[in-house]
């Protein structure tokens, strides 16, 4: 990202951190792992901001949560939550946003590539989230997959589709030189 847009990217990354938190707010508890919109905004951050700024965005989000701000699912927060049963999902957002960003950058900014990139990120989320859930709660593998993955697959597919549409809405807003490029020395 070139230097002249550093400020804009800082602002957008912060906005995404806030959107991720807002997406965690609307959580539906269906067991130890709730349904959230949070992961959609994580993946969206990857395709809109790219890997580096995506990481910054998720990093700030997790940092705020770790400090005790109520930004995790259902208004929870704190280090305990980060090391709790759903901590694996939360921490997986870092590699997930990075992978999504890299895939999206290499493939290009088309809707079908967006979907692919987000699917790749999604797999990363489960690859870390489910084993962590099994470890912390001491469930059997079958049980962990049953409460930590199966119930979300359809929802996540819908979220990925919605995310791809959202990208189509957001890109024109932020790429029009609407308010000009901000130059710094």
């Amino acid at each position, binding site marked *: 990202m070139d230097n002249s847009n550093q*400020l*804009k990217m*800082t*602002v*957008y*990354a*912060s*906005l995404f*951190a*806030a*959107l991720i*938190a*807002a997406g965690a*707010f609307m*959580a539906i*508890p269906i*067991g*130890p792992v*709730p349904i959230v919109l949070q992961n959609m905004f994580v993946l969206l951050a990857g395709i809109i901001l790219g890997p580096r700024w995506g990481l*910054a965005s998720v*990093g*700030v*989000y997790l*940092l*705020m949560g770790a*400090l*005790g*701000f*109520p930004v995790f*699912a*259902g*208004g*929870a*927060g*704190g*280090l*305990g*939550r980060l*090391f*709790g*049963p759903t901590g694996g999902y939360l921490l997986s957002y870092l590699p997930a946003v990075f992978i999504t960003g890299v895939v999206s950058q290499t493939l290009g900014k088309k809707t079908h590539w967006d979907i692919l990139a987000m699917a790749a990120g999604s797999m990363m989320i489960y690859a870390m989230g489910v084993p962590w859930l099994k470890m*912390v*709660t*001491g*469930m*059997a593998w079958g*049980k962990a997959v049953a*409460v930590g993955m199966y119930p979300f697959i359809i929802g996540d597919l819908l979220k990925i589709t*919605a995310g791809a*549409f*959202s990208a189509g*809405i*957001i890109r024109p*807003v*932020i790429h029009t030189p*609407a*308010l*000009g490029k*901000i130059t*710094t020395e």
Partner: protein
Amino acid sequence: MGVTPFAYTPSTTSIQRADARCKLFCLSVLSIATLSAGFIPLAVLIALLFGLLTLEQKSPGRVLLELKYFCLLLFFVLAARALTTPGDPVVVFLNTDVTRQGLLDGTLICLRFFAVMLLGMLFTCTTRPSLVKGAVEWFLRPVPLIPEKRAAVMITLFLRFLPLVLKQAHEIRQAQQARCSDLKKNPVTRAVNLAVPLLKKTFTAADRLAIAMASRSYSEQRTDPEFSRSGQEKKICCTALFLAGLLVVM
């Protein structure tokens, strides 16, 4: 908005007046210590935290009420443990044994999460946001690869955007309800109708904010944050370390 239990509430207690860096340090030490703490020390810690929160005008009743969703999730965790840990059955539920070991284990885990939650609450409601940000910046300074000034500005912006997004969502929903959008039952259409203007508006607002920041000469070579000390920091940190020691040893 839902952040009320965590919102900064000014008072004059010695926790309030202490240096934010000291508080952040204590928060981390105690949070980590709880991860290996047993029943009795945890119970004592929770009682102590409830007491300190009461001094900050947050009675135990109010705290529990505001954390009701969190408590529900804790209950799920407890149930999962109780039903899946092998051991001596206490009762049978849905053809599965609820074991004594499972119940004990689950309760312990829940108490730990709960204690950490209260710690975070105590920190954020006794420290003004600009100082939270300052303390984070200070601790990030020695960490390589992380530009601490930018992280601090991002925290400021994050706190700025969160209520903005929620407020805009609410306004858009009301404007649409006024045109009878509730009669449309298709949830997808409704979600799309809300999301499209919301995304456009929030990103436009972000764009404007970036412009306004640039015009105020935004730069990452900013003045460092300032901390005020009450002089009791040493005492507070020692107490926290001692407590943490007790939590681990007992």
